[in-house]
């Protein structure tokens, strides 16, 4: 499923230096578990996002391994501390080899 995948990320535009902020991420993906069967009883092959990584200026914030038990349109909420102005980089890895990326700038203010 390389089409129709749209990452959405919510990061505050500004933060005080050293402040802890909350980040919410969502990516549209059907997360086919491999457990379901189609109308003819044939198993539908697994097709999920298997890894999600969030970095800030090259330093890791969170690294998640996803299994088929994660719901459709995987959603994550987590905290990050912002030592300086910079860029959050979010990366999702699909079973089919696709990589979806998005990034958000944050300023100190």
């Amino acid at each position: 499923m390389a089409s129709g995948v749209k990452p959405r990320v919510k990061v505050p535009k500004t933060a005080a230096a050293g402040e802890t902020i909350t980040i919410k991420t969502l990516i549209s993906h059907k997360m086919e578990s491999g457990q379901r069967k189609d109308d003819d009883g044939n198993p539908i092959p697994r097709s999920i996002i298997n890894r999600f990584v969030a970095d800030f200026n090259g330093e890791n914030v969170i690294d998640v391994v996803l299994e088929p038990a994660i719901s459709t349109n995987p959603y994550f909420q987590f905290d990050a501390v912002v030592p300086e102005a910079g860029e959050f980089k979010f990366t999702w890895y699909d079973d089919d080899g696709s990589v979806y990326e998005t990034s958000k700038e944050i300023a100190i203010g």
Partner: protein
Amino acid sequence: MELTRRTMLAISSGAALATGLGALPAFASLTDDEIAKITGGAEMGEGAITLTAPEIAENGNTVPIEVSVPGAVMVALFADGNPTPNVATFKFGPLNPTRSASTRIRLAGTQNVVAIAQMEDGSFQKASANVKVTIGGCGG
């Protein structure tokens, strides 16, 4: 004995119950195996993990789960009643101060959600929460 519709119903529901009970320990040991792979059989403490899960989830396709473990480097989530117990593994980087994360997971039915955390000193912590699921999230 004459086989009426009523006795047939009683027999079949009894059989279903028996297979249901028989299946439970199999799933539980699968989870234990996966946990042992992570901990290597080490002793697990309790109390450091805050695992927030709904008591009753109407839709097993999307159950909100939140886990918070101050001082953890890694947290793994398991669902002991799913066909595959692994749910997700969170590794926390240096820029994550609260070591907490929330997500939405699939649950096949009423079961325990188990969280295993590896702390900074290498020790392990365990917590579990029972979630009652009205409609399972595994598809048919």
